Protein backbone atom coordinates (compact mmCIF):
# COMPACT_ATOMS: atom_id res chain seq x y z
CA UNK A 1 0.00 0.00 0.00
CA UNK A 2 1.37 3.38 -0.98
CA UNK A 3 0.96 5.99 1.73
CA UNK A 4 -0.77 9.24 0.97
CA UNK A 5 2.06 11.70 0.40
CA UNK A 6 0.60 15.16 0.56
CA UNK A 7 3.55 16.53 -1.31
CA UNK A 8 3.41 14.13 -4.26
CA UNK A 9 2.59 15.79 -7.57
CA UNK A 10 -1.06 15.56 -8.66
CA UNK A 11 -0.22 14.92 -12.28
CA UNK A 12 3.15 14.71 -13.96
CA UNK A 13 1.61 15.67 -17.32
CA UNK A 14 0.06 18.81 -15.81
CA UNK A 15 3.44 19.81 -14.46
CA UNK A 16 5.16 19.21 -17.79
CA UNK A 17 2.49 21.35 -19.49
CA UNK A 18 2.95 24.08 -16.88
CA UNK A 19 6.71 24.02 -17.32
CA UNK A 20 6.32 24.32 -21.09
CA UNK A 21 4.20 27.42 -20.58
CA UNK A 22 6.80 28.78 -18.17
CA UNK A 23 9.47 28.31 -20.84
CA UNK A 24 7.28 30.55 -23.04
CA UNK A 25 7.48 33.24 -20.32
CA UNK A 26 3.93 32.69 -19.06
CA UNK A 27 3.81 34.40 -15.65
CA UNK A 28 0.47 32.90 -14.73
CA UNK A 29 1.74 29.37 -15.34
CA UNK A 30 4.83 30.19 -13.31
CA UNK A 31 2.72 31.37 -10.40
CA UNK A 32 0.72 28.14 -10.47
CA UNK A 33 3.91 26.11 -10.48
CA UNK A 34 5.30 28.22 -7.66
CA UNK A 35 2.22 27.63 -5.53
CA UNK A 36 2.41 23.89 -6.22
CA UNK A 37 6.03 23.75 -5.11
CA UNK A 38 6.32 26.38 -2.43
CA UNK A 39 5.17 24.24 0.47
CA UNK A 40 7.11 21.18 -0.65
CA UNK A 41 10.33 23.09 -1.21
CA UNK A 42 9.95 25.03 2.03
CA UNK A 43 9.50 21.85 3.97
CA UNK A 44 12.42 20.13 2.24
CA UNK A 45 14.75 23.09 2.63
CA UNK A 46 13.88 23.59 6.29
CA UNK A 47 14.73 19.98 6.95
CA UNK A 48 17.99 20.07 5.03
CA UNK A 49 19.31 23.46 6.13
CA UNK A 50 17.79 23.73 9.64
CA UNK A 51 17.80 27.48 9.00
CA UNK A 52 14.22 28.66 8.59
CA UNK A 53 15.30 32.26 8.03
CA UNK A 54 17.15 31.41 4.79
CA UNK A 55 14.56 29.03 3.37
CA UNK A 56 12.41 31.54 1.52
CA UNK A 57 15.42 32.97 -0.25
CA UNK A 58 16.54 29.51 -1.36
CA UNK A 59 13.02 28.69 -2.57
CA UNK A 60 13.00 31.89 -4.62
CA UNK A 61 16.52 31.30 -5.94
CA UNK A 62 15.38 27.83 -6.98
CA UNK A 63 12.22 29.05 -8.70
CA UNK A 64 14.14 31.81 -10.46
CA UNK A 65 16.34 29.12 -12.01
CA UNK A 66 13.15 27.26 -12.99
CA UNK A 67 11.88 30.46 -14.63
CA UNK A 68 15.11 31.03 -16.52
CA UNK A 69 15.87 27.46 -17.50
CA UNK A 70 12.44 25.89 -18.01
CA UNK A 71 13.40 25.33 -21.64
CA UNK A 72 16.34 23.12 -20.62
CA UNK A 73 14.19 20.63 -18.71
CA UNK A 74 15.17 17.11 -19.74
CA UNK A 75 12.01 15.06 -20.17
CA UNK A 76 13.89 11.95 -19.05
CA UNK A 77 13.01 12.78 -15.44
CA UNK A 78 10.02 14.10 -13.50
CA UNK A 79 9.55 17.84 -13.21
CA UNK A 80 9.63 17.53 -9.42
CA UNK A 81 12.94 15.63 -9.50
CA UNK A 82 14.44 18.39 -11.62
CA UNK A 83 13.19 21.17 -9.34
CA UNK A 84 14.24 19.39 -6.14
CA UNK A 85 17.71 18.83 -7.60
CA UNK A 86 18.02 22.58 -8.20
CA UNK A 87 16.77 23.28 -4.67
CA UNK A 88 19.22 20.81 -3.14
CA UNK A 89 22.19 22.39 -4.92
CA UNK A 90 21.01 25.86 -3.89
CA UNK A 91 20.65 24.69 -0.29
CA UNK A 92 24.17 23.26 -0.14
CA UNK A 93 25.56 26.48 -1.62
CA UNK A 94 23.63 28.66 0.82
CA UNK A 95 24.81 26.56 3.75
CA UNK A 96 28.38 26.83 2.59
CA UNK A 97 28.05 30.60 2.38
CA UNK A 98 26.56 30.68 5.86
CA UNK A 99 29.48 28.65 7.27
CA UNK A 100 28.72 26.05 9.94
CA UNK A 101 25.04 25.15 10.25
CA UNK A 102 23.74 26.09 13.64
CA UNK A 103 20.89 24.76 15.60
CA UNK A 104 17.66 26.72 15.26
CA UNK A 105 14.60 25.71 17.27
CA UNK A 106 11.54 24.99 15.15
CA UNK A 107 8.13 26.54 15.64
CA UNK A 108 6.36 24.56 18.29
CA UNK A 109 9.49 22.85 19.47
CA UNK A 110 9.63 25.08 22.51
CA UNK A 111 5.86 25.28 22.57
CA UNK A 112 3.40 25.47 25.39
CA UNK A 113 3.25 22.63 27.86
CA UNK A 114 -0.47 22.89 28.46
CA UNK A 115 -2.92 20.38 27.03
CA UNK A 116 -3.94 16.81 27.59
CA UNK A 117 -1.32 14.36 28.69
CA UNK A 118 -1.42 12.43 25.39
CA UNK A 119 -0.76 15.57 23.42
CA UNK A 120 2.18 16.32 25.67
CA UNK A 121 3.64 12.90 25.08
CA UNK A 122 3.10 13.26 21.35
CA UNK A 123 4.70 16.69 21.33
CA UNK A 124 7.67 15.43 23.30
CA UNK A 125 8.12 12.51 20.90
CA UNK A 126 8.02 14.89 17.94
CA UNK A 127 10.54 17.20 19.54
CA UNK A 128 12.84 14.25 20.23
CA UNK A 129 12.59 13.27 16.58
CA UNK A 130 13.36 16.83 15.45
CA UNK A 131 16.35 16.99 17.75
CA UNK A 132 17.53 13.62 16.44
CA UNK A 133 17.15 14.78 12.82
CA UNK A 134 19.08 17.92 13.65
CA UNK A 135 21.96 15.65 14.67
CA UNK A 136 22.22 14.25 11.15
CA UNK A 137 24.24 15.79 8.34
CA UNK A 138 22.42 17.81 5.65
CA UNK A 139 23.07 14.99 3.14
CA UNK A 140 21.51 12.40 5.44
CA UNK A 141 18.53 14.60 6.27
CA UNK A 142 17.91 15.19 2.57
CA UNK A 143 17.66 11.44 1.90
CA UNK A 144 15.41 10.86 4.93
CA UNK A 145 13.14 13.77 4.01
CA UNK A 146 12.91 12.94 0.31
CA UNK A 147 12.00 9.36 1.13
CA UNK A 148 9.63 9.62 4.06
CA UNK A 149 7.90 12.91 3.42
CA UNK A 150 8.16 13.50 -0.33
CA UNK A 151 7.83 9.86 -1.35
CA UNK A 152 10.65 9.63 -3.89
CA UNK A 153 12.15 6.37 -5.14
CA UNK A 154 15.82 5.92 -4.29
CA UNK A 155 16.75 6.27 -7.98
CA UNK A 156 15.06 9.67 -8.09
CA UNK A 157 16.80 10.71 -4.88
CA UNK A 158 20.11 9.77 -6.49
CA UNK A 159 19.20 12.11 -9.33
CA UNK A 160 18.22 14.94 -6.98
CA UNK A 161 21.27 14.81 -4.77
CA UNK A 162 23.59 13.87 -7.61
CA UNK A 163 25.13 10.64 -6.35
CA UNK A 164 24.98 6.88 -7.16
CA UNK A 165 21.94 4.89 -5.94
CA UNK A 166 24.12 2.81 -3.63
CA UNK A 167 25.23 5.99 -1.90
CA UNK A 168 21.59 6.91 -1.32
CA UNK A 169 20.96 3.51 0.27
CA UNK A 170 24.08 3.80 2.38
CA UNK A 171 23.18 7.32 3.52
CA UNK A 172 19.73 6.17 4.53
CA UNK A 173 21.21 3.17 6.32
CA UNK A 174 23.56 5.35 8.34
CA UNK A 175 20.91 8.00 8.91
CA UNK A 176 18.63 5.42 10.47
CA UNK A 177 21.40 4.03 12.64
CA UNK A 178 22.27 7.50 13.87
CA UNK A 179 18.62 8.30 14.47
CA UNK A 180 18.28 5.18 16.56
CA UNK A 181 21.26 6.16 18.66
CA UNK A 182 20.10 9.77 19.00
CA UNK A 183 16.56 8.76 19.88
CA UNK A 184 17.89 6.36 22.48
CA UNK A 185 19.95 9.21 23.92
CA UNK A 186 23.23 7.38 23.49
CA UNK A 187 25.16 10.17 21.89
CA UNK A 188 28.45 8.75 23.06
CA UNK A 189 28.02 5.89 20.56
CA UNK A 190 28.00 8.21 17.57
CA UNK A 191 30.94 7.68 15.28
Amino acid sequence: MKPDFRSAPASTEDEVALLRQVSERDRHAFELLYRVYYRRLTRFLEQVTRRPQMVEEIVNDTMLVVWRKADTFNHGSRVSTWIFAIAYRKALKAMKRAAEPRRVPWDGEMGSTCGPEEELIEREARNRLRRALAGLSAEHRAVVELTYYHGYAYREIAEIVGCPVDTVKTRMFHARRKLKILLDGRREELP
Partner: protein
Amino acid sequence: MILRFFRFDDPVHRDTAELLPWLVNGTLDGGERERVESHLAQCVTCRRELEAVRALQAALASDERDPAVASALARLHARLDEDEAGYGPRRLLHMLMRRWREARPAVRRTLAAQCALILVLAGALGIVIASSSPPPALYRTLGDTPTATSGRQGIVVVFKGEHAEQEIRRLLVSLNARVVDGPSSMGAYRLELRKGGQQEALALLRADPAVAFAEPTPAQGTTNE
Protein backbone atom coordinates in the same frame (compact mmCIF):
# COMPACT_ATOMS: atom_id res chain seq x y z
CA MET B 1 5.02 7.50 19.54
CA ILE B 2 7.83 5.04 20.05
CA LEU B 3 10.59 4.72 17.48
CA ARG B 4 12.80 1.68 17.71
CA PHE B 5 15.47 0.71 15.22
CA PHE B 6 17.13 -2.66 15.23
CA ARG B 7 20.85 -2.92 14.69
CA PHE B 8 21.88 -3.51 11.09
CA ASP B 9 25.01 -5.49 11.86
CA ASP B 10 23.56 -8.77 10.60
CA PRO B 11 24.34 -9.01 6.86
CA VAL B 12 21.46 -11.47 6.36
CA HIS B 13 18.97 -8.70 6.96
CA ARG B 14 20.88 -5.83 5.50
CA ASP B 15 19.59 -6.08 1.93
CA THR B 16 15.97 -6.06 3.12
CA ALA B 17 16.59 -3.45 5.79
CA GLU B 18 18.15 -1.09 3.25
CA LEU B 19 15.06 -1.16 1.07
CA LEU B 20 12.41 -0.86 3.81
CA PRO B 21 12.07 2.94 3.58
CA TRP B 22 11.14 2.62 -0.10
CA LEU B 23 8.81 -0.30 0.57
CA VAL B 24 7.01 2.01 3.00
CA ASN B 25 6.82 4.89 0.52
CA GLY B 26 5.59 2.54 -2.20
CA THR B 27 8.30 3.16 -4.79
CA LEU B 28 10.05 -0.23 -5.00
CA ASP B 29 9.70 -1.92 -8.36
CA GLY B 30 7.93 -5.29 -8.64
CA GLY B 31 10.97 -7.54 -8.30
CA GLU B 32 12.44 -5.69 -5.34
CA ARG B 33 9.11 -5.51 -3.56
CA GLU B 34 8.55 -9.26 -3.94
CA ARG B 35 12.03 -9.99 -2.65
CA VAL B 36 11.59 -7.76 0.40
CA GLU B 37 8.09 -9.01 1.13
CA SER B 38 9.10 -12.65 0.88
CA HIS B 39 11.92 -12.04 3.38
CA LEU B 40 9.55 -10.14 5.68
CA ALA B 41 7.13 -13.07 5.63
CA GLN B 42 9.70 -15.25 7.36
CA CYS B 43 11.66 -12.73 9.47
CA VAL B 44 10.20 -11.34 12.70
CA THR B 45 13.14 -8.97 13.22
CA CYS B 46 12.64 -7.29 9.84
CA ARG B 47 8.89 -7.06 10.41
CA ARG B 48 9.59 -5.21 13.65
CA GLU B 49 12.00 -2.96 11.77
CA LEU B 50 9.32 -2.32 9.17
CA GLU B 51 7.01 -1.05 11.92
CA ALA B 52 9.73 1.29 13.14
CA VAL B 53 10.23 2.66 9.63
CA ARG B 54 6.47 3.18 9.28
CA ALA B 55 6.40 5.04 12.60
CA LEU B 56 9.22 7.31 11.45
CA GLN B 57 7.47 7.99 8.17
CA ALA B 58 4.20 8.80 9.97
CA ALA B 59 5.98 11.09 12.44
CA LEU B 60 7.71 13.05 9.67
CA ALA B 61 4.58 13.28 7.51
CA SER B 62 2.45 14.57 10.38
CA ASP B 63 4.81 17.42 11.10
CA GLU B 64 3.15 20.06 8.91
CA ARG B 65 3.32 23.80 8.84
CA ASP B 66 1.64 26.20 6.48
CA PRO B 67 4.16 28.63 5.05
CA ALA B 68 3.06 32.03 3.74
CA VAL B 69 3.34 31.68 -0.01
CA ALA B 70 1.85 35.03 -1.04
CA SER B 71 4.52 37.32 0.41
CA ALA B 72 7.33 35.10 -0.86
CA LEU B 73 5.79 35.08 -4.33
CA ALA B 74 5.46 38.87 -4.33
CA ARG B 75 9.18 39.19 -3.59
CA LEU B 76 10.02 36.79 -6.39
CA HIS B 77 7.83 38.70 -8.87
CA ALA B 78 10.03 41.75 -8.35
CA ARG B 79 13.05 39.67 -9.30
CA LEU B 80 11.24 38.29 -12.36
CA ASP B 81 10.54 41.85 -13.51
CA GLU B 82 14.26 42.60 -13.39
CA ASP B 83 14.91 39.37 -15.24
CA GLU B 84 12.34 40.22 -17.92
CA ALA B 85 14.03 43.53 -18.62
CA GLY B 86 17.01 41.61 -19.92
CA TYR B 87 14.95 39.35 -22.15
CA GLY B 88 15.31 40.10 -25.84
CA PRO B 89 16.09 38.62 -29.26
CA ARG B 90 19.66 37.87 -28.32
CA ARG B 91 18.57 35.83 -25.32
CA LEU B 92 15.98 34.03 -27.48
CA LEU B 93 18.70 33.09 -29.96
CA HIS B 94 20.92 31.97 -27.10
CA MET B 95 18.04 29.87 -25.75
CA LEU B 96 17.45 28.19 -29.13
CA MET B 97 21.15 27.43 -29.50
CA ARG B 98 21.31 26.04 -25.99
CA ARG B 99 18.27 23.87 -26.65
CA TRP B 100 19.91 22.51 -29.78
CA ARG B 101 23.15 21.73 -27.91
CA GLU B 102 21.30 20.08 -25.05
CA ALA B 103 18.90 18.11 -27.24
CA ARG B 104 19.36 14.36 -27.26
CA PRO B 105 20.85 12.91 -30.48
CA ALA B 106 17.50 11.32 -31.39
CA VAL B 107 15.75 14.69 -31.05
CA ARG B 108 18.44 16.39 -33.14
CA ARG B 109 18.12 13.75 -35.86
CA THR B 110 14.34 14.19 -35.91
CA LEU B 111 14.66 17.99 -36.14
CA ALA B 112 17.26 17.73 -38.90
CA ALA B 113 15.02 15.30 -40.82
CA GLN B 114 12.06 17.65 -40.42
CA CYS B 115 14.08 20.61 -41.71
CA ALA B 116 15.24 18.53 -44.72
CA LEU B 117 11.66 17.48 -45.42
CA ILE B 118 10.47 21.09 -45.27
CA LEU B 119 13.19 22.12 -47.78
CA VAL B 120 12.25 19.26 -50.14
CA LEU B 121 8.54 20.16 -49.93
CA ALA B 122 9.28 23.84 -50.46
CA GLY B 123 11.37 22.97 -53.55
CA ALA B 124 8.62 20.73 -54.91
CA LEU B 125 6.05 23.46 -54.31
CA GLY B 126 8.27 25.93 -56.21
CA ILE B 127 8.47 23.56 -59.20
CA VAL B 128 4.69 23.06 -59.20
CA ILE B 129 4.07 26.81 -59.10
CA ALA B 130 6.61 27.48 -61.84
CA SER B 131 5.05 24.87 -64.16
CA SER B 132 1.44 25.91 -63.60
CA SER B 133 -0.58 28.54 -65.58
CA PRO B 134 0.82 32.06 -65.53
CA PRO B 135 -0.91 34.54 -63.32
CA PRO B 136 -3.64 36.63 -65.04
CA ALA B 137 -2.11 39.52 -66.97
CA LEU B 138 -3.06 43.00 -65.97
CA TYR B 139 -3.64 43.83 -69.61
CA ARG B 140 -4.56 41.63 -72.45
CA THR B 141 -4.09 41.67 -76.19
CA LEU B 142 -6.20 39.80 -78.68
CA GLY B 143 -3.45 37.20 -78.95
CA ASP B 144 -3.83 36.22 -75.30
CA THR B 145 -5.70 33.13 -74.33
CA PRO B 146 -8.34 34.02 -71.80
CA THR B 147 -9.13 31.61 -68.98
CA ALA B 148 -12.69 31.08 -70.21
CA THR B 149 -11.45 29.62 -73.49
CA SER B 150 -8.87 27.25 -72.00
CA GLY B 151 -8.72 24.07 -73.99
CA ARG B 152 -10.31 25.61 -77.07
CA GLN B 153 -8.58 26.77 -80.22
CA GLY B 154 -8.54 30.49 -81.05
CA ILE B 155 -7.99 32.56 -84.17
CA VAL B 156 -7.36 36.24 -84.52
CA VAL B 157 -9.11 37.61 -87.54
CA VAL B 158 -9.45 41.03 -89.22
CA PHE B 159 -12.29 41.50 -91.66
CA LYS B 160 -12.21 43.73 -94.64
CA GLY B 161 -13.91 47.00 -93.89
CA GLU B 162 -16.56 46.92 -96.58
CA HIS B 163 -18.09 43.63 -95.50
CA ALA B 164 -21.32 43.85 -93.68
CA GLU B 165 -22.21 42.21 -90.38
CA GLN B 166 -24.26 39.67 -92.35
CA GLU B 167 -21.14 38.34 -94.08
CA ILE B 168 -19.28 38.04 -90.81
CA ARG B 169 -22.15 36.15 -89.23
CA ARG B 170 -22.19 33.74 -92.17
CA LEU B 171 -18.50 33.00 -91.73
CA LEU B 172 -18.83 32.42 -88.00
CA VAL B 173 -21.76 30.05 -88.47
CA SER B 174 -19.95 28.10 -91.17
CA LEU B 175 -16.88 27.69 -88.96
CA ASN B 176 -18.97 27.00 -85.83
CA ALA B 177 -17.01 29.77 -84.12
CA ARG B 178 -17.89 32.66 -81.87
CA VAL B 179 -16.33 36.04 -81.16
CA VAL B 180 -14.76 36.02 -77.68
CA ASP B 181 -13.02 39.38 -77.88
CA GLY B 182 -12.76 42.49 -80.04
CA PRO B 183 -12.95 44.47 -82.07
CA SER B 184 -9.61 46.04 -81.17
CA SER B 185 -8.62 49.52 -82.34
CA MET B 186 -7.21 47.78 -85.40
CA GLY B 187 -10.57 46.05 -86.06
CA ALA B 188 -9.29 42.60 -84.99
CA TYR B 189 -11.60 40.00 -83.50
CA ARG B 190 -10.65 36.94 -81.61
CA LEU B 191 -12.60 33.84 -82.50
CA GLU B 192 -13.00 30.62 -80.62
CA LEU B 193 -13.76 27.43 -82.49
CA ARG B 194 -16.48 25.36 -80.84
CA LYS B 195 -15.35 22.34 -82.83
CA GLY B 196 -13.28 21.49 -85.88
CA GLY B 197 -9.61 21.90 -86.68
CA GLN B 198 -7.81 25.19 -86.37
CA GLN B 199 -5.80 24.73 -89.53
CA GLU B 200 -8.91 24.01 -91.64
CA ALA B 201 -10.66 27.05 -90.20
CA LEU B 202 -7.61 29.21 -90.89
CA ALA B 203 -7.49 27.96 -94.50
CA LEU B 204 -11.16 28.75 -95.00
CA LEU B 205 -10.81 32.21 -93.43
CA ARG B 206 -7.73 33.10 -95.43
CA ALA B 207 -9.47 32.00 -98.63
CA ASP B 208 -12.53 34.05 -97.85
CA PRO B 209 -12.68 37.44 -99.62
CA ALA B 210 -14.17 39.05 -96.51
CA VAL B 211 -11.06 38.26 -94.42
CA ALA B 212 -8.03 40.49 -94.48
CA PHE B 213 -5.99 38.65 -91.83
CA ALA B 214 -6.27 35.35 -89.94
CA GLU B 215 -3.70 33.90 -87.57
CA PRO B 216 -3.84 31.37 -84.75
CA THR B 217 -3.66 32.72 -81.17
CA PRO B 218 -0.49 31.78 -79.28
CA ALA B 219 -0.38 28.26 -77.81
CA GLN B 220 -1.51 27.88 -74.18
CA GLY B 221 1.17 28.03 -71.52
CA THR B 222 3.23 30.61 -73.34
CA THR B 223 3.42 34.06 -71.98
CA ASN B 224 2.59 37.15 -73.89
CA GLU B 225 5.70 39.21 -74.45
